[in-house]
């Protein structure tokens, strides 16, 4: 374990997490108005109706897969009676299908963004950077799976990458676990860290406000004018009288 490993697998993750969390707090505090999907459906919907659900549903499955693979320890699934074989096949099949759907969806969306005039005009430099990083992460992730688990003999990331991932969250980071992982997995993880670091400053923030509350709230929302206190909150000590 050398210094580079510590930088890559200890310092970088904590940096990325810090930027991710504080970035979101900062943006929520200072840029609520900019917190939006910035949908371009008004301009074009034929391609969007194929590409966008393909990408989004794909990436949701990918997200679930990552939770299953990284967060849940191998011992738990084994205790639940899921054999290594069964897990492996499910993960590879589901992961590949979802990954291909995600990548295909993203390809359609990027094609649309480049070729449809109004959509391209509405694309900022920020968006372009985000698309590049996002595409990189997905391509590397899919490549790692294909190389290791479809073409290759199979790589059990649940004994190396997953414990490393969890070790970050209980503050006992173990870079050695990650240092030995195949390069594609390493690159995928690093690019993902980059994505998390730029996340709060891109349009990806819309994910954190996914409207699940809609399922339970009453249909019609009433709000009193009293709730709207002008464009800023009164400072402490200056609250209006009741």
């Amino acid at each position, binding site marked *: 374990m050398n210094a580079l490993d510590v930088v890559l697998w200890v310092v970088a993750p904590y940096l990325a997490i810090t930027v991710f969390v504080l970035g979101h707090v900062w*943006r929520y505090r*200072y*840029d*609520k*108005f*900019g*917190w*939006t*999907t*910035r*949908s*371009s*459906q*008004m*301009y*074009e*919907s034929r391609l*969007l*109706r194929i590409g*966008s*659900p393909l*990408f*989004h*549903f794909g990436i949701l499955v990918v997200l679930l897969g990552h939770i299953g693979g990284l967060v849940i320890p191998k011992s738990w699934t084994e205790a639940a009676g899921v054999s290594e074989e069964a897990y492996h096949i499910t993960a590879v099949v589901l992961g590949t299908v979802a990954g291909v759907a995600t990548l295909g969806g993203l390809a359609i969306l990027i094609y649309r963004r480049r070729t449809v*005039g*109004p959509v391209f*005009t*509405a694309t*900022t430099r*920020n*968006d372009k950077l985000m698309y590049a990083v996002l595409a990189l992460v997905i391509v590397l992730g899919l490549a790692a799976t294909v190389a290791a688990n479809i073409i290759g003999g199979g790589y059990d990331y649940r004994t190396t990458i997953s414990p490393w991932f969890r070790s970050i969250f209980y503050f006992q980071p173990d870079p050695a676990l990650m240092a030995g992982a195949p390069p594609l997995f390493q690159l995928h993880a690093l690019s993902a860290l980059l994505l998390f670091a730029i996340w709060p*400053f*891109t*349009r990806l923030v*819309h994910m954190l*406000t996914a*409207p*699940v*509350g*809609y*399922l339970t*709230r009453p*249909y*019609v*929302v*009433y*709000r*009193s*004018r*009293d709730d*709207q*206190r*002008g*464009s*800023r909150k009164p400072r402490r000590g200056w609250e*209006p009288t009741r």
Partner: protein
Amino acid sequence: MTKVMAQLAMVMNLDKCIGCHTCSVTCKQAWTNRAGTEYVWFNNVETRPGQGYPRTYQDQEKWRGGWELNHRGRLQLKAGGRLRKLFSIFANPLMPSIQDYYEPWTYDYDRLFSAPMQDDTPVARPKSLITGENTKISWSANWDDNLAGGPELAPADPVLRKLSDQVKLEFEQAFMFYLPRICEHCLNPSCVASCPSGAMYKRSEDGIVLVDQDRCRGWRMCVTGCPYKKVYFNHKTGKAEKCTFCYPRVEVGIPTVCSETCVGRLRYIGLILYDADRVAEAASVPDEKDLYEAQRSVLLDPNDPEVIAAARAEGIPEDWLEAARRSPIYKLIFDFGVALPLHPEYRTMPMVWYIPPLSPVVDVLSGTGHDGEDADNLFGAIDALRIPIGYLAELFTAGDPEPVRNVLRRLAAMRSYMRQINLGRERDESIATAVGMTGERVEEMYRLLAIAAYSERYVIPKAHAEQGARLEESMSGCSLDFEGGPGMGGPFGEASGMPVPVAVENFHALKDRQTTGALVDPEDRQNRVNLLNWDGKGTPDGLFPDKNGRKEP
């Protein structure tokens, strides 16, 4: 015990609308003259029959706005329930495209000045505001104004199509009228119910439906949810925007911009009290034709002591109750019974009501050589003319011709009754009796509809002074946020960053204006002051020559 709530409502008298679009233009100047809202008209005026704006928005089989009853007879959003909405969030299949509204454009005016000397006059070509490319203008918010393109375009009117089995569209005796539209500020707003983020809300004090710009995440479901298509998507900011009932104006007791500038003085604004607990029940009556009556039944009599007591219990202030008693809206809906809601069949309980136009009937009558102001002729014609009444019924009463006929008969009675007076004849009480009114009532109605004094048209209670401090700075837009403007370019693209408080912005704008002469002469800007912006207080730089006769640095 009823839960009394107050609602600001509007009535428009269609007989007086001349289709001048002043309301639309002033509204646009006030609210939607920004990048991203080029195509947006919070107020628009449509010619009926016509396709409307956006095209065929009334075809709810296509756009699926508003509510419907499910098989258990309960209200549900026509576009689908909550889960379905969330699953279609990535690409809303029911969202109108920019082409359904129209592709906004400008002209290449610079060409007129920069073209080299040539034989032909240079022309300013239209440029799309969406793509920036040259464009061919083929549609707009009122492309079919005054039945333009009639035989090709008007048959696509969804309201007319409902009638087409019974009546043929004969343009030789075409009838038409104008329908100005704003947001209906519904009692049962389906846009609010459609918003996944909970960013849209109905204000509990005055019922105005607004979008919280800080909470909107651009999921676009409100656009689908509104059957009147009066919530718009700002394609630059990625947020929904809609008619605000000019809340900064009505809060201080002055009418909305569209009303204030209405040339025909056809708009009425006032307060209505309603029973909030009964809204859902009334909106779910099984027969669409009962919806008009159901909607009326939710509204409460402001003179009823029980209602007053219940309203006080809900904390509605006394001056608001007084305004509700003087409300022209209540008079037009109940006392005179001439105002009807627009498309009650959408089950949203719209709160902008309309007095249907008698003019098409009078025109047809006069056209055939009859006396268009004689009571018997008019009554006869109203019963005989199925086209206008059928059409109006599809707009205002879910197809039930009876209420429309009653309203038109009352308007006709008023016309004949007042003519008797104008000609110096005896007051003919029988005309009033024939429509279930008294002569006194008819004259009262005449005063409100024809004289339409400002103070009687607009009875708008002020928002409460004790809430005043909270109202200031409630605007969230920045007028400098135009393309290339100084407000542009927060770190995340357009219009990101905190909104600049209006007072701060004005302060800087005023300061800039007072100290700049850039448009005139950049050389001596220090010496110039714009007197138009000087309020008489203090001595802005440049107002007087420097004491020592030298320029300030």
